[in-house]
């Protein structure tokens, strides 16, 4: 005899599966062509989905913010780390969309991929209204970093990447072996004076904005606005940035690449 509890629960679950397969009500979010209308609709979703952390005014002072180790971004400053544009520039709309969609790994910002793409674009439109930088014509045009052809990972290339890592003094913050324990790591702060953790490059789950080596290359090209991580566009060639990106990405697999250890 199956206990009544289990029978009822099974019945409820079966009913839910059956109902779950039916056509859902049509999402009433309409395509809004006008930017201002998109922003107005985005405000509703911002206050529902984003204000607990970023605050109603977007200053990063939401009710949750004080209880988080990684403080939410002050969106009124218009300073974004995760971009595809040159150092110091504003992000593209798609950069903001990508951050909303993918979230910020290791922080409390989850990936909002569950939101309807139209809603995410509404949020992009609204977020841009929070900073006057976006309406300043002097901020444009944006210089988008182009992704050059990746270089294959070779022992010689990794050795070259290692040399660049040392020459650029990446170890100051990220440490000799890339573990984020460099001598300057404890003193790194962002523009607002908050302590910034130097990423442990050997730990893939510690990367905030990179999910592949191309993302690492992009970050070397753009830098991270608002924190000490600079852009190397002017100091390293495309190939050198690829060698460095391949080396840094390979640090996660140091067992696989024993030759890439620290300074011997």
């Amino acid at each position: 005899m199956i206990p009544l509890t289990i029978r009822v629960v099974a019945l409820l679950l079966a009913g839910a599966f059956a109902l779950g397969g039916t056509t859902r009500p049509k999402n009433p979010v309409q395509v809004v062509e006008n930017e201002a209308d998109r922003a107005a609709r985005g405000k509703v979703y911002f206050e529902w989905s984003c204000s607990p952390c970023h605050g109603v005014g977007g200053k990063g002072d939401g009710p949750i913010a004080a209880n988080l180790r990684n403080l939410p971004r002050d969106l009124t400053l218009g300073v974004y780390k995760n971009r595809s544009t040159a150092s110091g520039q504003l992000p593209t709309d798609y950069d903001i969309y990508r951050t909303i969609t993918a979230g910020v790994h290791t922080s409390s910002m989850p990936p909002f991929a569950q939101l309807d793409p139209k809603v995410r674009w509404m949020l992009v439109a609204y977020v841009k209204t929070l900073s006057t930088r976006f309406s300043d014509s002097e901020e444009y045009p944006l210089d988008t970093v182009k992704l050059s052809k990746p270089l294959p990972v070779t022992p010689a290339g990794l050795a070259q990447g290692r040399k660049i890592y040392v020459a650029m003094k990446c170890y100051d913050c990220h440490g000799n072996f890339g573990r984020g324990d460099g001598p300057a790591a404890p003193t790194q702060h962002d523009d607002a004076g908050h302590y910034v953790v130097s990423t442990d490059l050997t730990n893939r789950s510690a990367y905030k904005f990179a999910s592949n080596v191309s993302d690492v290359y992009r970050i070397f090209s753009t830098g991270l606005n608002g924190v000490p991580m600079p852009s190397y566009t002017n100091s390293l060639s495309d190939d050198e940035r690829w060698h460095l990106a391949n080396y840094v990405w390979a640090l996660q697999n140091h067992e696989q690449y024993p030759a890439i250890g620290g300074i011997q």
Partner: protein
Amino acid sequence: MLITVDVRAIPLFARKYGTTCFTCHTTPPLLNDFGRRFQASGFQLPGASADPTAQVDQGPFPLALVAHPKIVTTSTKNNLSDSSAVRKTIFSGIELALFSTGQLGPHFSYFAETPVAIAGSDVGIDVLTAEVIWSDILGDGLGNLNLRFGKMSPLVAYPANVILSNADPFVTSYAPFSMVDSEVNTFILTDPMFGLSAFGLLPQVFEGLRWEVGLYGGNLSEIDLGKNRAVFVGLDQTIYLDNTPLRFGLSYFGGTQTIADALTPTVHWDNATNRVAVNIELTDPWLKRFQLCGEFVRGFDAKADSSGHTANSTIALIGTNIIILPERFYAFARLDYAEAKELGILNRQFDLGIRYHVLPNVVLSAGATQLDERRIGLLDRSTTSAVLGVLFGF
């Protein structure tokens, strides 16, 4: 075996969304503003579309495990006699809780919790919660209206352990104040019951009015709708004052309950119970790391015991959470009070403790409780207990 899983925060969502517990919790399991919206969206991100193509990969088997082994030392003194205090120290056993949650299809998700208690050769398993949620019925992603059904707890302001303590708050007790000292007749409002409810969080009303109207019945794992049925109505308003949340609410729980005499189980009587509660939650506007929670309840039981005595009760809770290091170290204190003058009952309970996250999913827990229970002429007992444990979440 009594199963008392004191963890209602689960690492499954943190894992699913690649984030930390503190995205949703002020101090686990107390929900912060984002967590409340997450809950009101059927355990999906607030604003989430029901479009299945846009869902986050929930993995092949969305299952999480929480274990909380602990050592408990207790000293109990009967003040009606001159006998000395009885002391004992026990290992609580390996208390596990399996959680599963995920999406069943567009608009439908589920949440299930199965605690497993292991103490020596004694193993207790229970389907504590199994609810199905039909979310975002209005299709606007704003959590206004949802339905849920299954075995679940009402959305009371302060569910058990919400202020971290291992002790149940008196305010959620539905005890008919039986004169017999027994757990049999103690009905905890936050113990999951079979029910059907409509709920949501209205973001159009300031920063969110949480509401629920539900029909509940049964007790613990028994389906016994004929013996216990009740209606629950809850409203809880959040207002931001300079981005600092202020919450206040009102709730009602009322119904009938068939009670069995603890000593003579063949003796039954029907009690009609009403509980009306108001609650408030304050956060300091400067650091936003100090919370003060309070709830005041007036209760009426038509037949609180087999003799047909009525009981008017006054029950209150005041508690505080202090976040010492964000996402790492927090402390709590709580005072509970319950009085039923007609029955000569006066209970008081004081709790304090700390939690320290050694790792995001490994938490050291320590706490102490002082419980004083008085029933004039029958009972005058003081119990002091201390708990030390480690909580693991996977």
